[in-house]
């Protein structure tokens, strides 16, 4: 198969997703409101309750708002990953997923394109969020804003692949709410997004351990360090590994002969 075909299909898929996101104003706004509420309300209220020591990558004492900003970036991507997989379950029920699946390209490539499309949308959201946060006096070195770009690609792909994997297991849209509760909330709260690991250790060693090995934590740490121009190697390989595992499982999940699709009555 020729390269141009792949290229055209991928840009078609990404272009469609971006266009849809930009034209759906409500979706754009609600994607922003969530992290902003966390930043303006939760972080402001929580600031007094949590004392932060100086830990890398920070070189001075920081406000809690500054600490949770990378966590909220991760949150944007986590929700976006889940949302795009939710839309895939919806697409599958409504049939537009079928149009994608009957086009003459390998399924892994179509899934990857869909994933990239969702990741680009999340990156767009993140930059708008960071711009608003900038006016709220949350500043990172300017190089940090560039460094997080590739980081966001990887973390977005990882979280998107997780969503994709889940969408391959979920038969109906209704079941999705449950999975959101069982995946999004534990992942978000059991991570370093809201509180640093050492702080968690003070209250529960088990929780700290769970948080440490949570791929979402690793993605957040990768973003946190990148925002300050540093490269967290362990977080990078951990996130990359998680992406590959989730992606491979999702491809199997969408394979008509091996995956869950064949075990389901409807599609």
């Amino acid at each position: 198969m020729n390269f141009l075909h792949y290229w055209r299909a991928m840009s078609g898929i990404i272009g469609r997703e971006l266009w849809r996101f930009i034209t759906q104003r409500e979706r754009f706004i609600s994607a922003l409101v969530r992290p902003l509420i966390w930043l303006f309300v939760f972080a402001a209220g929580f600031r007094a309750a949590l004392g932060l020591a100086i830990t890398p990558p920070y070189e001075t004492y920081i406000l809690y708002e500054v600490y949770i900003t990378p966590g909220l970036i991760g949150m944007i991507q986590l929700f976006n990953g889940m949302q795009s997989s939710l839309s895939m379950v919806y697409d599958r029920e409504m049939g537009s997923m079928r149009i994608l699946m009957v086009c003459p390209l390998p399924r892994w490539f179509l899934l990857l394109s869909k994933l990239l499309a969702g990741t680009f949308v999340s990156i767009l959201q993140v930059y708008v969020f960071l711009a608003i946060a900038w006016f709220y006096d949350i500043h990172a070195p300017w190089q940090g804003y560039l460094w997080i770009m590739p980081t966001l690609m990887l973390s977005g792909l990882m979280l998107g692949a997780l969503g994709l994997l889940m969408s391959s297991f979920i038969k109906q849209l209704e079941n999705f709410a449950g999975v959101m509760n069982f995946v999004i909330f534990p992942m978000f709260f059991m991570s370093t997004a809201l509180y640093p690991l050492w702080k968690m250790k003070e209250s529960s060693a088990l929780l700290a351990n769970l948080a440490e090995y949570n791929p979402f934590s690793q993605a957040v740490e990768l973003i946190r360090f990148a925002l300050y121009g540093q490269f967290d190697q362990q977080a990078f390989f951990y996130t990359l590994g998680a992406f590959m595992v989730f992606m491979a499982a999702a491809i199997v999940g969408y394979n008509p002969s091996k995956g869950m699709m064949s075990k389901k009555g409807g599609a």
Partner: protein
Amino acid sequence: MGRSGKTMNTKTPSALCIEQLSYAYSGKKALDQVSFTIQPGECTLLLGPNGAGKSTLFSLITRLYDSRDGQISLCGYDIKRQTQLALAKLGVVFQQSTLDMDLTVMQNLLYHTALHGIARKVALPRIQQELERLNMFDRRFEKIRQLNGGHRRRVEIARALLHKPALLLLDEPTVGLDVPSRLAIVDYVHQLAVEENLAVLWASHLIDEIYPDDHLVVLHKGSVKANGSVSEVLATTKCASIKEAFYNLTQGETS
């Protein structure tokens, strides 16, 4: 059933060839040893009541599911081993609308041509041609949401033809449409088969969508009850009308 597989070795392969296809959902048989072929230019009506296995068959042809037993080939390409070559020959109109409601007609069609790797400068005249044939070209910049059911269907048929498939699959495409829209679509698809030498597989449970020259496959409870031209089916069932034949073939069965 005599038609199954007989053209496999001839020079031009059948547009669609299904051989001994079986499929089960958790032990319950949805398709049982289904075999039939469709030649280019032939309009085949797949008739069957609800639950006959039509949708399962379509899911297998479009490779949403995989069949362990039996074989499906499109234009000689095995759907399992040469998936992409086979899918490139296939145009599909699904039962439910698969258009993006918030995009325009043009955007929907361009998305489809992108998925099929068609360059924009090739795609645009094709889109114009297909839309003009269906009197939809003037509405190309309207959002799908603004179109009525019949017009949406026309867009979907136009879309299914953009990559010049050899086989057009339609899964009950006239469900929910008013009579004039329905007749227009039935007529248009029959015309396509003749003029474009397109093979058509049309799933339906509506008898009046059958034309006298059509090829009929009657599916009931997962197996083929009749397979042949309208006159052949009438002769074998000794019925005066297709309605009667369909009724006889699909009632009182305990397969």
